[in-house]
């Protein structure tokens, strides 16, 4: 088992023929993902990477029965691409694009809240269920099928977590990157809930950072409802207040969204918090050993 995506996912690539879209689509195909086609307005009717290209998402869905879409379109048009995917009946939308204006995402989030579609991202590495289904830009080879669910706000830091979890021999059920933006489609708490419900997931790694309250929201939920050990690292203990640290959402606003404040609440909620990201793998092994599973 896994969460959200598996070998039955039929994936459509929005921004298919562009540089990023082409490169990552071919990487996904190599990994074994069932990429059924792509969308580039104006290039409908052609073929790219051996898959059909469509002008609109609705045509593509009609023809291919795609149920997942991954978006590589530039930031100015990305919000529109998300709305198009939802309007065309796509149930899971993964948006890789970084740099979407915040107010665009405020509108998108409101729209999606009234429609039956889940958004992952934007500004995220995507989602992967090893060994065959990669819907994102992460290096596939570091992943290994296993029993740990990983959720992260950061791309390369999630690779670090994946690598350690693979090397201690546990492997992953699914890794989901929720993204570094201030208005994410899927929250850390929602990802944690899905992992708690997934019978194959035995433990969860939660990678957070400064800014916002997604990690503490998840922690309070875990304290009441958690059934599996959770290991966590919060990046940015050394970040100054009021400065944006790369990710648009990584900015300390007040006292409650510093790394220290979050770690303290996470610890109070029974989460195994590590101060060094180098200790994630070891901490998960310890947490599983000490848990009643």
């Amino acid at each position, binding site marked *: 088992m896994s969460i959200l995506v598996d070998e039955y996912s039929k994936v459509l690539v929005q921004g298919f023929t562009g540089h990023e879209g082409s*490169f990552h689509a071919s*990487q996904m195909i190599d990994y074994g993902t069932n990429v059924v086609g792509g969308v580039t307005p104006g290039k409908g009717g052609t073929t790219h990477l051996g898959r059909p290209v469509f002008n609109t998402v609705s045509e593509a869905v009609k023809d291919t029965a795609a149920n997942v879409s991954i978006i590589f379109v530039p*930031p*100015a048009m990305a919000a529109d691409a998300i709305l198009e995917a939802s309007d065309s009946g796509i149930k899971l939308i993964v948006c890789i694009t970084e*740099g*979407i*204006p*915040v*107010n665009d*995402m*405020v*509108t998108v*989030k*409101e*729209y999606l809240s009234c429609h039956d579609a889940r958004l992952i991202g934007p500004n995220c590495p995507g989602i992967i269920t090893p060994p065959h289904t990669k819907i994102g*830009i*992460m*290096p596939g*080879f*570091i992943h290994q099928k296993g029993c740990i669910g990983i959720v*992260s*706000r*950061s*791309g*390369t*830091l*999630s*690779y*670090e977590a994946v*690598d350690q979890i693979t090397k201690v021999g546990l492997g992953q059920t699914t890794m989901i990157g929720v993204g*570094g933006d*201030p*208005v994410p489609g899927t929250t850390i708490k929602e990802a944690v809930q899905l992992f708690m419900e997934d019978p194959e997931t035995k433990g969860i790694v939660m*990678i957070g*950072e*400064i*800014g*916002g*309250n*997604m990690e503490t929201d998840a922690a309070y939920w875990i304290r009441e409802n958690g059934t599996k050990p959770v290991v966590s*690292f919060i*990046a*940015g*203990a*050394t*970040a*100054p207040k009021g*400065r944006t*640290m*790369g*990710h*648009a*959402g*990584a900015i300390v606003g*007040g006292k409650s969204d510093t*790394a220290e404040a979050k770690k303290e609440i996470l610890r109070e909620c029974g989460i195994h918090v590590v*101060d*060094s*990201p*180098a200790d994630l793998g070891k901490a998960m092994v310890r947490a599983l050993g000490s848990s009643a599973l």
Partner: protein
Amino acid sequence: MNLHEYQSKIILKQYGVPVPEGLVANTPEEAINAAKALQSLTGTEKWVIKAQVHAGGRGKGGGVKVAKSLNEVRQYADQIIGMMLVTPQTSAEGKLVRKVYVEQNIFYPGPADPSEIYLSLLLNRKSGRIIIMYSPRGGMDIEKVAEETPDQIFTEEIDPTLGLQQYQARRIAFNLNLTGESYKNMIRFLLAIYQAYIKSDATLIEINPLFKTSDDKILAADAKVVIDNNALFRHPDIATMRDFDEEDPIEVEASRYDLNYVKLNGNVGCMVNGAGLAMATMDIIKLSGGDPANFLDVGGSANAKRVEEGFRIILKDPAVKAILVNIFGGIVRCDRVAQGIVDACNNIGNIQVPIIVRLQGTNAVEARKLIDESGLKVHSAATLEDAANLVNTVLK
């Protein structure tokens, strides 16, 4: 993007938000001329002279003065322009003031009591919606108000598909105990400022104080507007307002190379691919007994040119005693990054500080071999833990 008060007010005015009349001045002479122009425009006999720097709490550091004559305008402008203004939001050295904003005085006698209100518009990250936060206790540090009298802080959340509704604006005006003309003016003010927030792609508008005059006008006495960097592509007029003098010169140079760099005060520089891993690397430096000198995300490609630019930027900071490069190679191959590091070191030449390179991911073993055999004073590490230990060793 941060803006000066006078720039914030230009934007607010475009959307019909009432602000006092004011003019910006770079010299005491310009300040005098501005004061005369404001006098003929508004009849004001007093002026407020305000330092224009990107920091709050300017009044506390002597950066805001009320001038009661043209002589005082000259005197205060002369004092403020060129001063190192220290406020609770600046460093101990303060910030150099290059210009002042001369504004009509709005604290004049009249039939009603004047009052100060706090008002801000910002994103509520929890709900993903814009909120208006407001308090009748304006003119003070809002964090202090929140601590002392949390019941005096109100919020109004806005449905993005509908925008701010009349009933919401009425509720705000009633909660602020406004009546009569000031009540009506407040509603107009709110509808205008919400438009300003949305149409200028702001991520923060803070008006503290929002001033109710003795004749019941509602005016933004101070204004702080922050614009979403990611939306500047649709606001070329606002993009030109960026004031490079207010930014760290090394950060300005880094932004020219499209490098995401934030200057910090430590002794270990770092260069990382990815923002989260970059923050984590800073944390590791701290845990190893050092202090991070910067945040630097070189992005996904991390090729020789980017690495070289990154090194040059880091080395501009004389406090840097060591550099930690941390690359998790995914799509980008580590051996290519390693070659980039070797080339960059050779191109720059004579780098005095020790460099620790941690490469993990695709072709990491080959990459470390390449580094070790380069003959450079570069230490290679395999894991984060090794890298941390090496930082600790070279600092000793």
